[in-house]
C-alpha cells in the first residue's frame, strides 16, 4: 500500500528544501523513494499549493509526571473554566486584548493526558518531550506519557541535585576526579529511567534548599557538599559528551526568574568549557536590573552571547498573557516565588533525596509591568538570535503559556505588524523599556520549520524524524498557506502519523499511540554494586524497582520503546 502526497510545497530544512514542489511516497509508515511506474498507488492526496512539513517536535513541554499531575489536582477550576468556555463557544470575556485567540487557543494549562495528545496532533505536532523527569518519579512520567495518545514522547532525566551524584562529586573533589564513574552513573540513569537526555535544574540549588540555603549562584558552594553549580555543570556536560548521546545537557540555570539573573546565564554559557549545552526557557533567565522598577530586558546581551557561543543552544520559554500554572523542579526558586502565585496557592515538595518540585498558578497580565516585559523579552530573543538551528520555539508549557498557544506565537514571529499591534497594548512603562518595535525581522516558513522540526530533531538525535527525506518516519503535517499564520498553524489540513492519516481539517480522525524515544549508551555495569549499597542504606526502595523495564512501557500493547543509536 503506497500513499502519494502530490505536488505539495515542501519545507524540509534538513534537506535544504524551501518551498520546493515535490511528491512524497509513503509505504509502511516511512517515506520511500518514488516507486516504479507500475507500482500501485492506493491513495493520493493532491496537495497543490499546500505547505508540507515534517510533524513538529516540541523539545520542551511538561506533559507528564508528578508535578504536572499535582498541577491538575491542585487546579480543578482550570478544567472547569475550560469546559465552560467550550460549552459556550465563547472566548473568555476577560482575555487580555494583546492576546487575540483562535478557538483552538484553549488556554487549558492542565490538560489531561488524553487532551495533551489530541491538542498536539491537531496542531501538527507529532512528538513532545517531557524535560524534567525526576528519576525516582520516572515510572509515573512514563505511565502518564503512556496514556498520551497520538504523539511520540520521551524525556530528560534530572540529575545534579540528587544526593548520590553530589556525594560522588564532593568525594572526587577531595580525592581526584573520576569522570568514568560519573559517566557510568549518568548512563545507568538514562537506562533506568528510559530517558533520551539529561537535564539539570538549578544545579545544586534544589539540594541546597533542603539544607536551608535560599539562593545559589553559579560559583557559590552547596553548603553541605561544598561543590558549586559550575562544577556540577562541568561534570554533567562532560558525561553527556563522553557518552556520545546527541542531546546536549539540558540546563535550567540558577536564579530562575530573578531580576539581574542574566549575568548568571551569561556565565553559565562558559561553564561547560566549550562542550555543548542547551539553556532552557532562556527568557526566564534574561532579566536585568535597570530602570525605576529594577527589572529590565537583558535580551540583547543574551542574544549576543548566543550568537557568539556556537556550542550553546536555547529554547525561549515565551510567556503569553493569561492564566496558567508554573510547574518546575526548582523547589528553591518556586518557594521564593510562591508569594507571586495567582491564585495564591502553591505546592512545594522535597523529593526522595533525588529532586524537588514547585507548582504555582500564575496569571500573566499585559498591564503588569514585569509580565509585559517578560513577553517582550522572549520575542526580543527570538528575533535577535541569528541561527534558527540553535533557538527553539517553546512556551515551557505550561509555565509561560499552554502549548496550544504556539500558533499565536508563530504569528507573532512571522508578522511584524501583528506583533507591533500587540506590543502597543502593553503596559506603557514596559513598552518604554523594550526595543521590540525596532526589530524588523519576520520569521520565514523555512525558519519556523527549522525551529519546530529539523532543529529539534537534530538536537535530540531523532534521526528519522523532523524531516521529509527517504527513510524518515512518515510524520507529516500539511497546512493551507494563509496570511494569518495563527489560523494556518492552528488547523492543519492533514496530519499523518507513521504514514496514517490521523487528523483532517484540524480534527482527529483516527486514534493512534506513539512510541517512547530513548538513548541507551553503553556503560560499566559494575556501577550497580555501589548503587545497590546506596539504595539499601539510604533509599526507601530497592534498586531493582527504581529501574523501568521496556515491558512496563510496551506491555499494554500500545506503547513501544525506540532506542536511538547515537
Amino acid at each position, binding site marked *: 500500500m503506497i500513499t502519494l502526497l502530490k505536488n505539495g510545497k515542501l519545507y524540509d530544512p534538513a534537506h535544504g528544501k524551501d518551498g520546493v514542489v515535490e511528491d512524497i511516497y509513503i509505504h509502511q509508515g516511512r517515506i520511500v523513494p518514488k516507486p516504479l511506474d507500475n507500482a500501485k498507488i492506493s491513495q493520493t492526496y493532491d496537495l497543490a499549493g499546500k505547505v508540507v512539513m515534517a510533524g513538529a517536535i516540541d523539545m520542551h513541554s511538561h506533559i507528564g509526571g508528578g508535578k504536572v499531575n499535582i498541577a491538575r489536582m*491542585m487546579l480543578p477550576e482550570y478544567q472547569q473554566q475550560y469546559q465552560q468556555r467550550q460549552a459556550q463557544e465563547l472566548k473568555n470575556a476577560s482575555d487580555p486584548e494583546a492576546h487575540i485567540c483562535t478557538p483552538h487557543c484553549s488556554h487549558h494549562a492542565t490538560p489531561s493526558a488524553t487532551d495533551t495528545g489530541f491538542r498536539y496532533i491537531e496542531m501538527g505536532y507529532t512528538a513532545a518531550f517531557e524535560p524534567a523527569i525526576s528519576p525516582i518519579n520516572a515510572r509515573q512520567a512514563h*505511565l502518564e506519557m503512556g496514556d498520551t495518545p497520538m504523539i511520540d514522547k520521551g524525556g530528560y532525566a534530572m540529575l545534579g541535585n540528587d544526593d548520590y551524584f553530589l556525594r560522588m562529586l564532593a568525594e572526587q573533589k577531595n580525592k581526584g576526579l573520576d569522570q568514568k564513574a560519573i559517566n557510568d552513573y549518568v548512563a545507568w540513569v538514562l537506562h533506568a529511567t528510559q530517558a533520551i537526555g539529561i537535564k539539570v535544574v538549578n544545579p545544586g540549588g534544589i539540594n541546597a534548599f*533542603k539544607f536551608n540555603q535560599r539562593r545559589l549562584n553559579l560559583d557559590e558552594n552547596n553548603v553541605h557538599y561544598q561543590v558549586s553549580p559550575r562544577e556540577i555543570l562541568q561534570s554533567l556536560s562532560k558525561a553527556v559528551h563522553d557518552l556520545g548521546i546527541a542531546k546536549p545537557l539540558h540546563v535550567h540555570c540558577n536564579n530562575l526568574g530573578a531580576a539581574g539573573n542574566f549575568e548568571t546565564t551569561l556565565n553559565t554559557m562558559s561553564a561547560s568549557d566549550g562542550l555543548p549545552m542547551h539553556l532552557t526557557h532562556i527568557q526566564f533567565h534574561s532579566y536585568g536590573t535597570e530602570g525605576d522598577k529594577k527589572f529590565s530586558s537583558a535580551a540583547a546581551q543574551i542574544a549576543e552571547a548566543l550568537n557568539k557561543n556556537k556550542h550553546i543552544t536555547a529554547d525561549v520559554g515565551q510567556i503569553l498573557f493569561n492564566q496558567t500554572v508554573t510547574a518546575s523542579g526548582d523547589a528553591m526558586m518556586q518557594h521564593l516565588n510562591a508569594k507571586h502565585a495567582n491564585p495564591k*496557592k502553591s505546592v512545594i*515538595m522535597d523529593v526522595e533525596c533525588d529532586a524537588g518540585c514547585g507548582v504555582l498558578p500564575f496569571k500573566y497580565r499585559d498591564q503588569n509591568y514585569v509580565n509585559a516585559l517578560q513577553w517582550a523579552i522572549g520575542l526580543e530573543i527570538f528575533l535577535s538570535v541569528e541561527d534558527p538551528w540553535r533557538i527553539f520555539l517553546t512556551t515551557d508549557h505550561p509555565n509561560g503559556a499552554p502549548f496550544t498557544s504556539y500558533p499565536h506565537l508563530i504569528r507573532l514571529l512571522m508578522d511584524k505588524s501583528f506583533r507591533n499591534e500587540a506590543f502597543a497594548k502593553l503596559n506603557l512603562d514596559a513598552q518604554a523599556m523594550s526595543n521590540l518595535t525596532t526589530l524588523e525581522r519576520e520569521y520565514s516558513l523555512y525558519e519556523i520549520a527549522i525551529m519546530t522540526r529539523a532543529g529539534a530533531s537534530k538536537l535530540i538525535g531523532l534521526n528519522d524524524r523532523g524531516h521529509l527525506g527517504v527513510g524518515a518516519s512518515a510524520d507529516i503535517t500539511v497546512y493551507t498557506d494563509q496570511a494569518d499564520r495563527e489560523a494556518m498553524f492552528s488547523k492543519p489540513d492533514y496530519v499523518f502519523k507513521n504514514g496514517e492519516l490521523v487528523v483532517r481539517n484540524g480534527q482527529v480522525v483516527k486514534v493512534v499511540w506513539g512510541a517512547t524515544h530513548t538513548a*541507551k549508551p553503553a556503560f560499566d555495569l559494575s556501577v550497580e554494586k555501589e548503587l545497590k549499597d546506596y539504595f539499601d542504606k*539510604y533509599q526507601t*526502595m530497592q534498586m531493582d524497582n527504581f529501574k523501568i523495564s521496556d515491558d512496563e512501557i510496551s506491555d499494554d500493547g500500545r506503547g513501544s520503546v525506540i532506542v536511538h543509536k547515537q
Partner: protein
Amino acid sequence: MNNLSSPTQPTTATCPACGLLCDDVTPNAAAAVSVKNGCSKAIQFFEQSFNANIDASPSLAGKPCNLDTAIKAAASLLDKSKSALFAGLGTEVQGMRSLMRLAEKTHATLDHMHSNSTVRNTLTMQNGGWLTTTLAEVKNRADVILAIGTDIATSHPRFFEKAVWNTESLFNKPTPEVIYLGVPAEKTKAGTAPNGTTPTVIDADTGNLPEIINALNALMNNKKIKTDSAGGVSVATLTALLDKLKAAKYAVIVWSAGSFKFSHAELTIQSITQLINLLNENIRAAGLPLNSGDGDSSVNSTSTWLSGYPTRSRYVDGKPEYDTYHFSTSKLANSCDALLWVSTFNPHSPPATTAPTIVIGHPATKFERQPDVFIPVGIPGVDHTGQMFRMDSSITLPLEKLRDSKLPKLNDVINKIEAALSNIDKASAD
C-alpha cells in the same frame, strides 16, 4: 538494547497492605504463612491472600456461573444504567485505567472507598497548597517528627523502622525526636527509640485539634493567647513544642486525614500546612500526609492524569466533572441505578443499596445480600503484576506476581465488560 541487569527471580516483593509499599518483603505461602520483613499488616494481608480460593467462581445472585455469563450480565446491567456508581475502587494503576474507560462509556460516577479521608487533604491542597516531603527525605534529614492525631504505626506499621530508627543516614543526623500531639499514650509505643528514648506525648482529644493547631499558628505569628490553655493543652506546652520545631533543621509534621474524624477537618489540615509554611521562613520543615490504603493514592493519581480530576468525578458525554460533595458513595448509593463495587486487595463488602449490584473483587468477599453479579478477581501483587503509588505520591512501585492463579485480572474483566456493552460510543477516544 538494555544493559541493565534484571533479576530473573524476584527474591523480594512489594507489599500493598499499606501506603508504605515496602518492597523488601518475602512472603512464603506455606501452610503457616510467613513474611520475611513483614509487619502485622503484611502478614494479615498475605495470609488472607494466600488462603483465598483461587478457583472461586463468578456468580449471579449467588448462583455459580462461568466468567462469560457474568461479564454479559454485568454489561447488561451497565447498558441499562444511566447513572451508575463505580465505588470501592480498591485497585492499582492498571485496574483504574480500565475502570476509567468503562466509566467514560457508561457515564458512571467514580468514588474511592477512602475518599472521605482523601478529600480532606485534596481540598486543602486545592485551597492553599502545601509543602510536603517523601520517605527518603524523612529517613535522611528529619530531626524532629511531630505526629498530629495519628500514631502512624497502626496504619503504616514499618514507618519508624524504615524512616526514623535507621542507623545510617546520608548526613549523620541524630535520631529524631518524636512528638505525638493528640494521640492516646498507649498508642505511642512505636515512637520509643531503639535506645529507649521515649517520645514526647502531648495528650489531647482529637476533637480538640482544630483549636490546638490554630493556637499553635497564633503563637507562631507572635500573637498572645489570653487563656492558659487551648483545647486542653497548656499554652506553655504549645510554646515548648513550637520552640522544638523552630530549633529543628528539618522538621516533619505527619498527619492522617483518616484520623481527623471531625467536621471540616480540611480546615485543620490547612492550619497545619500554614504552620509548616511559617516554619519554612527560617528553617526547613515539611508535611507528610498519610494515606488510607486500598490503592487510594494510585487511583486518585491515575484518575487525575486521565480525566484531569481525582475521584469523586464522573463523565457526562465524554466530559469529566468533579464534585467532592455530591459524588460521594454515601450520597449516591441509593440514587444510582447500578452499583459496581471494586475491592481487589481486601474483601471489603459493598455498601447497602437498592440498586442492581455488580461486585468485582477479592474472592473472599462476604455479602449480606448476594449481589446480582459477583466476579472474583486476582489480588494485585499476589496473583498478577501492577503498579502502585506510595503514600507520598511521588514514588511508584511495580507489584509482583507471586503465584499462578486462575483468577482473572480486574482490567481484563473490565475490558471484556466494555467490549460487551451494546451502546459503545464509537467516536470516543479509546
